[in-house]
């Protein structure tokens, strides 16, 4: 008997099963730590302390969280239109190019109030442009967007290496990076802003981008669920035929959605380039684009879920750094492995527990199940 068409109550589908999946992922992560010869519980303690135990840790945690919110939202909005954007990494990277070009041209001439919006817009535009090409190819040439966005990650990387090594490199410098932008283009640091209102916190990379990320969450939520454009997006994602029937053009949805997705991914450059490095460096995206996939899967493509999942990954990244310091046998890459486990259990194996859940549900709730059908 098939269980896939039995409806489960929302709290099982939306909360219980996802939470159990994450628990499974974390359980296996603990198993790995145990296998290496360290205590998983101790590791968790060190991580939590590293992430929240002191204000510097909190700053770093939220700084990482910022990146994950951007890339998680990018993946999620595409998911709602049933598009799988694996290209967040490349879109973020090219977003950095946008910021770099804008500031290399303008940072000496314009004031901060103009430079910041210009930088944000440049990051979004360039990220969107890099997503536009796979989107167009999917809509009008039928190329599978998963494969093209993977390819575009590699192409983005090649483009950026070429530009940084040959074109944008700071004259006379050996390392492939641009010159530092003038301070007028820097995203204000959180510790600076808090200092203005008299709160003294330790200097961390956390900057105004964090607020921007939260604003993006709100905007994405409004866009998807509260506007007619989001309505069209969800319709096209659920059924292309229904979209056509309803006067919605699926091709247009593919392109608009992917451009928004790319723009969100491009925002990583706002945090990293405008907020922290103040120059374009090689590989500043550091896999954040891929982490966005895990974040979106774990957050079930909802902005609230994404904030929570991003926070968890922020803890993993920052706490993981602390862990690597405290337990030399464990390295920062442990976080990548955990990320893999979360994609596995929250994504690939998301349906694994469902048949068992259905059986348990039908066993303990026979009366209600029958009444529902009656």
């Amino acid at each position, binding site marked *: 008997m098939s269980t896939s068409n039995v409806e489960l109550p929302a709290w099982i589908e939306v909360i219980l099963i996802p939470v159990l999946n994450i628990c499974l992922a974390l359980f296996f992560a603990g198993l*790995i730590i145990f296998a290496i010869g360290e205590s998983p519980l101790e590791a968790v303690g060190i991580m939590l302390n590293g992430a929240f135990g002191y204000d510097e840790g909190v700053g770093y945690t939220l700084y990482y969280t910022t990146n994950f919110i951007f890339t998680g939202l990018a993946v999620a909005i595409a998911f709602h239109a049933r598009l799988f954007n694996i290209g967040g990494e490349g879109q973020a990277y090219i977003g950095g190019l946008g910021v770099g070009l804008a500031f290399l041209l303008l940072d000496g001439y314009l004031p901060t109030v103009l430079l910041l919006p210009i930088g944000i817009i440049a990051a979004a535009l360039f990220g969107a442009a890099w997503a536009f090409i796979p989107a167009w190819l999917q809509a009008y040439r039928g*190329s599978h967007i998963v494969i093209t966005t993977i390819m*575009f990650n590699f192409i983005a990387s090649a483009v950026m290496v070429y530009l940084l090594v040959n074109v944008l490199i700071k004259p006379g410098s050996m390392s492939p990076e641009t010159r530092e932008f003038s301070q007028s283009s820097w995203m204000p640091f959180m510790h600076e802003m808090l200092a203005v209102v008299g709160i003294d916190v330790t200097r961390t990379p956390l900057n105004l981008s964090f607020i921007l990320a939260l604003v993006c969450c709100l905007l994405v939520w409004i866009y998807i669920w509260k506007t007619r454009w989001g309505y069209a997006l969800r319709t096209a994602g659920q059924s292309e035929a229904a979209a056509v029937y309803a006067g919605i053009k699926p091709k247009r949805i593919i392109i608009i959605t992917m451009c928004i997705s790319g723009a969100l991914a491009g925002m990583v450059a706002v945090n990293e380039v405008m907020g922290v490095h103040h120059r374009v460096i090689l590989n500043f995206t550091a896999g954040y684009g891929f982490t966005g996939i895990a974040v979106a899967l774990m957050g079930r493509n909802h902005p609230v879920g994404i904030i929570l999942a991003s926070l968890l990954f922020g803890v993993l990244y920052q706490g993981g750094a602390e862990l690597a310091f405290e337990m030399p046998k464990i390295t920062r890459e442990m976080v990548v492995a955990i990320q*893999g486990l979360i*994609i*596995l259990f929250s994504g690939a194996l998301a*349906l*694994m527990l469902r048949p068992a859940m259905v059986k348990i549900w039908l066993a303990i709730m026979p009366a209600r199940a029958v009444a529902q059908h009656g």
Partner: protein
Amino acid sequence: MDSLLNAQTVLSTLDATLRVSTPLILCAMAGLFSERSGIIDISLEGKMLFAAFAAGAVAAVTGSPWLALAAGMLISTVLSLLHGFACITTRGDQVVSGLAINVLASGLTIVLGIAWFSQGGQTPALASDARFMPLELPFIEQIGNLPFIGPFLEIVISGHNLLVYVALIAVPITWWVVYKTRFGLRLRAVGENPLAVDTAGISVSLLRYKAVVIAGVLCGIAGTYLAIAQNAAFAREMTAGQGYIALAAMIFGKWRPVPALLACLMFGFLDAVAIRLQGVPLPGIGEVPVQLIQALPYLLTVILLAGFIGKAVAPKAIGVPFAKER
């Protein structure tokens, strides 16, 4: 003198092409088996990486290249079975599952490498008897003196390690299995119309599991090659996107063994040339950025997928979990 030098360069470039193409060929054949059965496999990269790590580690500990090969194939097959379980049994998303394996391999190989060997993620360097070393073909010195064909055989074909030849033989074998055997017939059928296979009395799941296991074995050989044949140790992230290039080559070859081989050789050639062209201006074109050549496999694949050169038609049932009951 000048022309001789050029001939020498051409031959050594072809020689390098073969070396670089070997993991691509093995992975492309792996991808072909999996995708022909209807299972998208973007986890070639992760399986190869994990196999490389396992092979490097086992070779370092035991000193036996054969045990290392077995370990590489085993771990890669285990990952394949995990992919199969997610995609076939729980009917999960095939792309997400592949991605999970890639990310998991990327993190776990370094974590375990550092935990076990404390060399920053590397496995210890191997002595030559723990590796697959170049083999000289018999009578190659005599043959090498033959005009024209001689140097080609001596420099390009001879002097590779066993796994290079395994990769080259894997292609005709794949072709033969896919087109000439009962298993191949069923494999091709299940990627096109699993319902037809099911009603013909064949288990769709079992067939697909077999296909992903073959993919696992081949990726295992590819990873072993990287760690203990082409190189003398496992290094972190040593696959460096080659799994994806192999995937691109397989698509470029339109899911057929011989065209996929040619695509692998072409991509391998581009890679071999890129290193040699660095900083060398080409007549009439000027200096070609090495990054452009490196990006060419991806660019060409995108152009192919866009339908500008021929049409790449994937197996019809690819990516769709098979569900029998309504």
